[in-house]
């Protein structure tokens, strides 16, 4: 297994320009797998509002991936994410038999054979990562929260999506990271670093919650306590969405916020259930952030096989 992080620019902690919201771009190759020209290589590209993810699959098995920040240009982000996934694999675009685009910018993946929504793809990806026992998926993306119900094969049976407000989403967390001057990757841990859980902030609207947080800081609350109050409010909002769609165990969380232990543990507390354990993505497990792109890659394999059979 090889891993590389993007050290260009100010991605590490982002303290140079105050960009505390910046999370790290990276790519990975699962090196115990190899590919040959006779293999079916497919890719899934998930162009989200905040992050773009590309996953390469060899015969329907995850081989490599790349995670980058979505720039202002979606088509370019798609290509860039794919390039990151290709790093260290020797693969190139012409080796791909079938590509499925997904996410907010799915129509902008110019080289994709088909576009599918991230809802279908996250369920499929979660099914691959955790197995058939997954029946409820909470995908917390950059600007959307989706609660998805699926069957043993990862097919969507029902879903709900938040409205156009950014409350409870990754973007909302970025705003808080910047406000409190804490790296986005640390805020989950920090939010748990309180002796007693404070009441959730009353307003989940990012703009108003920010005002409320400033007020709490002035009142003498610690950063940890403010984070705990905001994270709790977000977790309640997510849990309500899950309750509305109907929670059927096992529950998993995908998307960028799956790495926020503050969110995950609070969702578990509110709902009274445990999520399936997070794969050890820093080592040899699959990163739940890429679930959408992974699902797209799996659908790409299925769709490719279909074209072969007809």
């Amino acid at each position, binding site marked *: 297994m090889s891993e590389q992080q993007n050290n260009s620019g100010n991605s590490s902690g982002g303290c140079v320009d105050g960009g505390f919201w910046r999370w790290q771009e990276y790519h990975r190759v699962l090196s115990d797998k190899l590919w040959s020209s006779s293999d079916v290589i497919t890719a899934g590209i998930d162009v989200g509002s905040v992050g773009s993810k590309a996953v390469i699959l060899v015969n329907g098995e995850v081989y490599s991936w790349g995670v980058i920040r979505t720039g202002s240009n979606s088509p370019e982000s798609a290509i860039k994410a794919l390039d990151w996934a290709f790093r260290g694999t020797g693969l190139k675009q012409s080796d791909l038999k079938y590509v499925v685009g997904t996410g*907010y910018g799915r129509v902008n993946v110019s080289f994709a054979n088909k576009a599918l929504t991230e*809802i279908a793809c996250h369920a499929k990806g979660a099914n691959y990562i955790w197995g058939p026992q997954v029946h409820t998926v909470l995908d917390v993306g950059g600007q*959307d929260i989706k609660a998805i119900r699926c069957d043993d094969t990862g097919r*969507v049976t029902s879903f709900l999506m938040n409205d156009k407000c950014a409350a409870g989403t990754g973007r909302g967390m970025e705003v808080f990271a910047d406000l409190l001057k804490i790296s986005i990757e640390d805020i989950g841990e920090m939010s748990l670093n309180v002796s007693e859980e404070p009441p959730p902030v009353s307003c989940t609207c990012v703009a108003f919650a920010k005002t409320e947080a400033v007020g709490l800081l002035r009142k003498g609350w610690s950063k940890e306590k403010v984070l705990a109050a905001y994270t709790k409010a977000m977790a309640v909002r997510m849990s309500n969405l899950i309750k509305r769609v109907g929670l059927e165990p096992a529950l998993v969380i995908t998307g960028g916020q799956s790495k926020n232990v503050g969110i995950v543990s609070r969702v578990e507390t509110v709902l009274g259930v445990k999520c399936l354990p997070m794969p050890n993505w820093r080592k040899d497990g699959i990163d739940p952030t890429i679930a959408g792109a992974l699902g797209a890659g799996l659908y790409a394999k299925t769709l490719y096989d279909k074209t072969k059979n007809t």
Partner: protein
Amino acid sequence: MKDKKVEPKKIMSETTQKEIDELKNIIKAASEQVIAQTIERLKKAYPNRPKEMEYFDEIANLFGKRAKELGQAKAEGKKIVGYNCIFAPIELILAAGAIPVRINSGWYDTSKLGDRVVPVEVCSIVRSTIGAKMIELSPFIEQSDVLINVLTCDGMTKLGEILGDYKEVWGLSNPRIKDSAQALKFWSEEIKQIKANLEKLTGNKITAKTLKPIILKTQKASRAFRRLQSLRKGNAVISGRDAMLVNQTYMWDDIDRWIEKTDALCDELERRVQNKEWICPPDTPRIMVTGTPMFWPDNWKLPRLVEEGNPPGILVADELCSSERILYDPVGIDEWTMDDMLNAIGERYLLACTCPCFTSKDGGNKDRINWLLTKAKDNHVQGVIYYITKGCMLYEMEYTRVKRALDKANIPVYYLDTDYTREDAGQLKTRVEAFIEMLNAQIDII
């Protein structure tokens, strides 16, 4: 009927006529463009679109042919009666020699103007209709001599008061418990009052002799309408948007002409059924929409997202008071006496209606659920979209019961809430497409 002096432009008293005219011209020009673009889009989306749709395309221009005809009729001394709800007894309006036109607004831009008068939480249709009146945009509202305002929900009730600043408004109150002993009696009295008002307005007495041919006419319209809906039961020969457009034009078109053109369209569609000339591949997911009414021209967002989605679906049925509910039930007459005709009109508007403003003695709007389940079965519906615009509380709240019934019947349903805005199109697209993908997965397309 009182001869009250109506003071005009009360709700925008601070605005000069010049400003009103400017706003009107801008929004009107934009709206004409939207109408033309929407029709062009339909033509492009369906290269084999039925030829007979051409007529409805023309009538779809709210500022075009029909508006001029109304102006002419008015100049000749005819009265025009605007109405906000399909409970308004069209037969009586016609029998009095007046012309009925529905006035609910589908303009997004005018809903922003309505925000100056009522809070944004108020239903988009109400806000938009107020806004349309503020800038004198709608030829139908402007040319109406009076408005019949049916008090179906809170928004509509107060809409009548606001519009009353400009025009004479007749409130028409419907009972809430449809099957109570008093309901029909109460409603009949309301209908009789409208009849008396209409006679006074037009100077024409409504008699058995004048009413009978009108009832025969609307029965004929109902037959043409039902013929169109039944053509949507098999493989699709017409898009949902075109069917909705035909249904909706009934609300302002000349009825005799509408019947003739709808029958001509049905003839064409029947030929297409025989030639197996489908409007989309037969495995396209078949969708029914229910909920808040969708008004031409701007609020055609959802049908477009469904039918031009990736993957696309096809609307094969709806349960909207802006479309399939308009004419579904004809007036049923036993004897052609005046009493019987009036009773039949009352029953047709009250008992047949599935609007969530009703409940029943045992506490549910069962008629709506039965209607949905029957339609879903007859039209081979694979999924239902429950469509809501913000502030449409009756429909919002009835969702739970409808969902329970559809769940039981194993029909997937998706709740889609939006507003009179273009800004959420990307989000809605994902939601609609994910729902269609879900239906596709059930039939193994993905």
